[in-house]
């Protein structure tokens, strides 16, 4: 009986490793493309954070690159910076190496940090499963929204619902985003084998 309870406890612990809306996300310290470490604590005046797990190689991540740039442009000054994190193992996908991240950040003129989850720990703590995968946090790192950037990856012009922008607006007005969870197709995160 005790064994069964212990097993149940263990399995529930494993499940709770994935962040849900309302949970407090942990801070991290990851290397940026300028070789400096970045933490959420480096942003004492932020009202929230648009944490996006993304990468170089994934076609869906690429479709959203320009939209991420626009989001940062629009919301960083309002207190909601984009923090991009590449969770992939470059041994599996060489295109997602720190060197390639530097190139991408430079060529696309990213104004937001593009961090490398070298130990592949942060994405696990957040429960990200794919790229791109968004976690909107408030200033206390409470998760307010998880999921997609909008409802149409392929055709930005045909987007009907800007899920993430709506969520940021809600958060800014002190309201809970609705929907608070959405889904998107993405590339599975490439783990070290």
């Amino acid at each position, binding site marked *: 009986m005790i064994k069964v309870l212990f097993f149940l406890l263990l399995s529930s612990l494993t499940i709770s490793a994935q962040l849900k809306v309302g949970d407090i996300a942990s801070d991290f310290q990851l290397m940026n493309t300028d070789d400096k470490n970045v933490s959420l604590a480096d942003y004492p005046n932020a009202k929230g954070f648009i944490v996006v797990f993304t990468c170089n190689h*994934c*076609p869906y991540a690429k479709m959203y690159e320009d939209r991420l740039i626009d989001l940062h442009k629009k919301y960083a000054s309002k207190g909601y910076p984009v923090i991009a994190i590449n969770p992939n193992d470059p041994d599996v996908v060489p295109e997602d190496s720190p060197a390639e991240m530097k190139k991408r950040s430079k060529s696309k003129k990213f104004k937001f940090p593009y961090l490398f989850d070298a130990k592949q720990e942060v994405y696990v703590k957040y429960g990200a*499963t794919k790229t791109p995968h968004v976690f909107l946090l408030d200033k206390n790192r409470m998760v307010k929204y998880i999921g*997609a950037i909008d409802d149409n990856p392929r*055709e930005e012009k045909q987007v009907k*619902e800007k899920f993430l922008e709506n969520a940021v607006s809600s958060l800014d007005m002190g309201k809970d985003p609705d929907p608070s969870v959405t*889904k*998107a197709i*993405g*590339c599975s995160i490439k783990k070290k084998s």
Partner: protein
Amino acid sequence: MDVLVGMGKYLFLIISWTFFSTGFSQIQEPKSIVLDDLLTLMAKNDDTIRVFNFWATWCAPCIKEWPYFQKLSENSSDKKLKLWMISLDDARKLKSKVVPFLQKHQYTASVLLLNETRPNVFIDAIEPAWLGAIPATLIIYKGKRCFAEKEFHSQAELNDWIENCTNFKN
């Protein structure tokens, strides 16, 4: 001389036709479907094991596990199991990406392209447990479902999973 050149051309055509028709068969262009078509396929309730694999030509792990699904389709001609490889490629790339991929590998498994642009709608409609990463594989059998949002690394792993999923006590 002209006659000889002309004959040479015909000979070349005949030889190439023989080569292509024996060693290299034309793959049929997959049909493009919408969500409702897919849900209709999924809703059939009989003794057939229905396997749906969600993939795309741009998805490296999907490409890696394709051979196991191809083998599965070759081994399931008894119709107790039906497999559909549902491509999530951009419908505009059906001819330029999907067909050449199938042609190159001579894959004959049944392929359909899901021409839907709103993942937040179609993902949940297909399978609520699906978080949206591919590859993903869904089995529907006797009204029950089994879902795996992962890559299969061997034929045995895939076969065992299907076996476990379809081995209900009742």
